[in-house]
């Protein structure tokens, strides 16, 4: 019926952010895991540093099991997925039962990969489900505002992560433009000055990553 409460607008935004955080951190983990198999067993320390999360892990094995699926580790992929789930489950009215199923399926797949010696197989399924979730959001949700708010959450999260990871200039420029093009189409309150500065930073030869992360984190104003 096109009316959304303040609480649910916020949840849509965070659903977008957490689904992105699960997706991108699962992919990053996959890269890191591959290196840890036989090349650099201590690579997880660098991983934590890059993502700006505390390195509380005692070994490669400890990292691999806890970072994926420890419900008591607030930075684990599982914890972030549960935050996405907690937001999704109360948005049935806004987004519908079908999109929620993909978040639900991710939770089941995540639980399965917990016990696996080959966790990337399970994580791949989680990624597939998140991609399907985004696809169905695009395809099935009629309300443009709802779609856009989820996407803005996703874009903000991605730019934040890419900035922290100091990704290549091209990726940053692309994400800034995607975010800028999207946020203007929502009813979210955001800081226009920040957005202008972000766009400017994306034009510079030398990317100021710290500044970009700071601007992205304060872009939304509610």
């Amino acid at each position, binding site marked *: *019926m096109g*009316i*959304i*409460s*303040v*609480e*649910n*607008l916020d949840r849509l935004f965070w659903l977008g952010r957490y689904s992105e955080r699960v997706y991108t951190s699962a992919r990053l983990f996959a890269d890191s895991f591959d290196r840890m198999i036989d090349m650099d067993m201590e690579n997880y320390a660098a991983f934590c540093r890059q993502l700006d999360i505390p390195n509380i892990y005692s070994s490669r094995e400890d990292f691999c099991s806890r970072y994926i699926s420890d419900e008591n580790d607030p930075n684990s992929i599982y914890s972030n997925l549960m935050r996405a789930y*907690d937001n999704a*489950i*109360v948005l*049935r*009215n806004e987004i*519908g*039962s079908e999109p*929620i*199923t993909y978040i*639900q*399926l991710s939770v*089941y797949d995540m639980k399965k990969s917990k016990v696996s010696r080959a966790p990337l197989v399970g994580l791949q399924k989680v990624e597939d489900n998140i991609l399907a979730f985004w696809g169905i959001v695009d395809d099935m949700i009629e309300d443009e505002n709802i779609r856009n708010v989820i996407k803005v959450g996703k874009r903000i999260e991605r730019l934040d992560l890419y900035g922290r990871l100091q990704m290549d200039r091209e990726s940053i420029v692309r994400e800034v433009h995607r975010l800028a093009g999207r946020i203007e189409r929502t*009813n979210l309150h955001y800081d226009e000055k920040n957005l202008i500065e972000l766009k400017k930073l994306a034009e510079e030869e030398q990317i100021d990553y710290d500044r970009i992360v700071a601007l992205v984190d304060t872009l939304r104003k509610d």
Partner: protein
Amino acid sequence: MQNIELTKRAETVNELLARYGVKFGIYKNNEFKEQLFPFDTIPRIIRKDEFAYLERGLKQRVMALNCFIRDIYGEKKIIRDKVVPEEFVYISSGYLAPCDGVLPPRGIYAHIAGIDLVQGRNDEWYVLEDNLRVPSGASYPMIAREICRKSSPATFETYHVEDNRYYAKLLRRTMDYVNTGGHTVILTPGRYNAAYFEHSYFAEKTGAHLATGSELMVEDDYLYFVDYSGRREKVGAVYRRISDEYLDPMTFNEESVIGIPHIYDVYRKGHVALLNAPGNGVADDKGIYYFVPKMVRYYLGEEPILQNAPTYLPYYEEDMRYVLEHFDDLVLKDVAEAGGYGVVFADRMTAQQKADFIALLKREPRRFIAQEVIDFKDIDIVENARRVPRKADLRAFVLMADEPIVWKSGLTRFSRDPDSFIVNSSQGGGFKDTWVLSQ
């Protein structure tokens, strides 16, 4: 009926139920947990003619109950005519004084009634309980049917089963019929409520708006939904899934933080419809249950079509004598308890427990009803690949708009414990689809 293809597809069905998150919430050691609601693929099957009989009886019963509530909060004729003793009304915890003299939109109190029935081994149906406050459960057979049809289309080619997915339309019609002008809202206590899945599912399927108390407000004697921009949208009907006492801290429980202050005052003035009406508990009280067949005769001038389980009120001396003489054969129910609690089977008590209970019964006769133990007709479920018989009941749903309509399905709950009669999901029970045959 042994060869229903669907029963071979249990794995697929359960996978899909999990996918759609068909769950209920439960508190264990003060911690909230979501559990899948165990589903058994063998349906309860009700013949067309048998259901037609139930339908007539259910309509009649809900009509009479509605008349009763209107009378109790209005003229009180049934009390004056001494059909129902007044103390049964006024001491009932379901009787709410603030409802006296308040006529809801179109005079409907029990919009959505859940009537619990059981079938005896003699094939007779008995009503065990009327639920007129916030009966839950219709969403489960609704989504289960959707999934069963997906999992085993062949089954539904073979059997001619009334579709049950129109429940959403029925519900919408019921809400629209009493809407006083404005949006329709389903009010939920929030996601940590046992039936949250159902609340959000109904909102999606009916197109009503799901809201918690904090998203609604009263201003100038009307109820509004407030959106993120501060815009107010008038609300004309609220299907509230929170209990009476938490509905409005200004009239009921002052401590409630999930209600909406002054919603009751707005309702009192006829500016919004509440489904179901506050105060309905006076009619589904276990003590009042005894009087329902008398209500049918009193208000409708008809013989009741559906029977109660044989019930005794120790309040009446004659009944007390009977109860004491036949104590071991009876089940005793505390009228104030719900959800399968406060139910005791006399033959399972120790001598000491019996003596204590009888003393309590004599001290507080009004507090208990006694019923004959019905010889249930068991229903098969599949357990570890074997068919085993279990106790089951049926919650039929009657929706009241311009006339009562009985949903051609229902929630069949079964006990997973072979020795238990308690089918409530909160105590580990499961559910089945209920098929009403169309031919």
